């Protein structure tokens, strides 16, 4: 039996291998995606992001446990950074989730950022789509909320949970970091620690300043992942958010927006890859840099030229 057939029969080995092919951009991966796309579109995508060590993996573990117990099939993607110097990565989120390893309802996949800006958001989205097509009801995506890329990934989800801890301190600071604005739900984990109440108050006051595009009331949920407390509340909030979105916009509109988003990411990824290959292959690139250095041209005019080259590459 071929991989795709096994995939369609619900074989996890095949699912894992297909994710790799897609992630590695192996020849033929687009055909795979195109074929699987027909089966996708049902899964609810939930992003969890927040500062390092906030308890994201622990929360994902607890949510996974809860959802699996109620018969839901859950795919989990845990993203960790690739070392920019060596291209390697140490992926350790699984440690917290290993107790779900044997659960037939759960599939956990660790992903490294692999350094490419546009590429990561695209690869995560593709992996989500593959999981969706495999038949998962939900896909939980954990990213560390530090870089723009991670924020992009979170943004592509149906609901975004931003995880804080009492030690996070100055919530206004976090607002500036861009983390706050992407949240649909605020989760204050490690609520067993001192300072939880204070941070909730602080968050509430900051939330008053947040720009709104709709009537969604941003909830602040307190959890203790290690003690398995507050996980129901968190799940309820996620469900509420889904219901809100469903009532706020028509299914067609949401579908349209989702397709538009997907399309944009895919196009961006392609353009990005072409661009990079143009820049890499272009004999002129080094020369252009040298020219700018020598003062014979400037970055603006040079960029025009390179974009023109890219357009040729795109149409050829």
């Amino acid at each position, binding site marked *: 039996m071929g991989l795709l057939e096994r995939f369609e029969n619900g074989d996890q080995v095949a699912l894992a291998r297909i994710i790799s092919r897609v992630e590695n951009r192996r020849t033929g991966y687009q055909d795979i995606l195109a074929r699987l796309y027909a089966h996708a579109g049902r899964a609810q995508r939930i992003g969890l992001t927040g500062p390092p*060590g906030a308890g994201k993996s622990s929360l994902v573990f607890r949510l996974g446990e809860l959802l699996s117990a109620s018969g839901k099939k859950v795919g989990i993607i845990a993203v960790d950074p690739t070392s920019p110097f060596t291209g390697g990565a140490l992926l*350790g*989120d699984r*440690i917290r989730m290993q107790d779900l390893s044997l659960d037939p309802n759960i599939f956990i996949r660790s992903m490294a950022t692999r350094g490419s800006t546009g590429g990561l958001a695209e690869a995560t989205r593709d992996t989500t789509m593959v999981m969706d097509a495999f038949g998962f009801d939900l896909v939980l995506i954990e990213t560390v909320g530090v870089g723009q890329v991670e924020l992009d990934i979170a943004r592509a989800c149906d609901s975004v949970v931003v995880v804080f801890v009492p030690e996070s301190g100055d919530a206004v600071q976090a607002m500036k970091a861009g983390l706050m604005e992407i949240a649909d739900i605020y989760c204050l984990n490690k609520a067993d620690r001192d300072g939880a109440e204070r941070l909730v108050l602080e968050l509430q006051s900051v939330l008053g300043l947040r720009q709104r595009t709709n009537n969604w009331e941003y909830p602040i949920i307190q959890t203790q992942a*290690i*003690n398995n407390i507050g996980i129901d509340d968190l799940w309820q909030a996620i469900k509420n958010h889904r219901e809100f979105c469903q009532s706020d916009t028509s299914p067609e509109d949401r579908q349209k927006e989702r397709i538009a988003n997907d399309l944009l990411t895919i196009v961006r990824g392609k353009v990005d890859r072409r661009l990079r290959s143009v820049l890499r292959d272009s004999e002129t690139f080094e020369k252009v840099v040298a020219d700018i250095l020598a003062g014979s041209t400037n970055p603006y005019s040079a960029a025009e030229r390179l974009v023109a080259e890219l357009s040729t590459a795109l149409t050829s």
Partner: protein
Amino acid sequence: MADLMDSAKKGIEQVLSKSDRKKYEEARAKFEEQRNGADELDGRKFITVSGLPIKDLYTPDDVAGKDFVEEVGFPGQYPYTRGVHTDMYRKRLWTQRLFSGMGNARQTNKRYHFLLSQGQMGLSVAFDLPTLMGYDSDHAFAKGEVGKCGVAVDSLKDMEIVFDGIDLGKISTSMTINAPAAIILAMYIAVGEKKGVPSEQLTGTLQNDILKEFIAQKEWVFPPLPHMRLIVDTIEYGTYHMPRWNTISISGYHIREAGATAVQELAYTLANGFAYIEAAMARGLDVDQFAPRLSLFFNSHLDFFEEIAKYRAARRIWARRLKEKYKAKNPRSWLMRFHTQTAGVSLTAQQPENNIVRVGWQAMAAALGGTQSLHTNSMDETLALPSEKAALIALRTQQLVALESGVTNTIDPLAGSYFVESLTDQMEEETEKIFNEIEQLGGVLAGIDKGYFQREIAKSAYAYQKQVEKGERIVVGVNKYVMDDKVDIPLLEIDDSVETEQCEALRQLRQARDNAKVDSTLAELKAACKDESKNLMPYLVECSKAYVTLGEMVDVMREVFGEYQEPPMF
């Protein structure tokens, strides 16, 4: 007296009179002009095993301005840099303590009777991995590990056999166990009681150091907080009921083995010690009630002088903290007594006989550092449990150091060495820096939670490995003077009979004992676990007496306390 103090104060500075100073400067200038000044030779860096850079020469300038009395002083006097006892090894040599463990309770008991008949006064108990992790021998996780690296203890029954025919009022027992230490102590108290020896008369040491487990050896059961509570429970219980018992041995050995540098070993271990002290004080104990019975346990690694400086600095830091920060008034609280074991990780599988020599100078460093007791490793320890011959050579090694080398003739012979004194100061300074880092993280527990220690140790281990692979650090037989000797790993005898017997004994025990009593003592234990104000020791003693197994007690506690998972640290 004031005179004496004054002259001592100026210390080494005084070595140079005014006219000498001029000559000294000239000689120094000449040296500086002629020196080679390189920081490596053939790629081998002049750094300690911990990576501290070492200068080509140390001179009086390196100890200038040092206050002799305040910083070095005299043995048996604050701050104890030169040793905790006035006469040190001229009155009594260190205790030669070899840690050993084997199979089942019966075999262990036989071995102990033999050792005692040979004049040994203390016993040292090694437990098998399931016991160390709080599992009974018939637990699925115990499969294949029962009785392998020590004795399997499931219940009071096993403890009764281990100590059968041994007078617990006379001998002292050292027990290397951490996560379930309180349970094992409870069983020991129960055995004593059965033999008519009240807990007040029991002497010995319990390792009972959970912080280094979270940091390095990774044998934990519960999360850090409940574990800390258990430790304070044992300290508190010991204070009132076991005045001759050392409830904790604060261990740097395992931290070092996991890859820490000497400075990290020193800083982390002392920080752990202070964390226990603070926890016990927070319980309402007076520091002088328990501090005299705290002891430490360090590693003796390859870098001879660095190790000596480490022990000297450790005593000084400990004494100062205890006196100044924790306001201990009893001088016995200021003394840092310690046990040493030579570094297992420094031994090589290649050309194993070379290890005898390594252990030799490691033992000597421990002696020059003023250790109270010493375990010397066997040359074949990297590959298997030591053979009898190798164990004997290891024992002889420390006896040679003690009796033939002459290093025990005078106290702290390296004091006043420009190099050793300045390295001692450097160790102290570096340690203080790490203390600051730990404080900024919010203390030892916060550091564990954030994976700080684990990460730093892993970094050091990796850096060390890279140095060896690049040849910046020489390991004879591994990256230099390599011979084509095949490393022969001896085949392990798999003797599963211990496991079968142990499981059968457990089955019988569970049938024969009064199970109503088991249930009621366990229920009381559980209720006490939920009540923070309760000291768990009396409950554990009651459970032990009812032949509740170790695994059953741990299970009940786990239900209340939860389990711990390591933070992913990279």
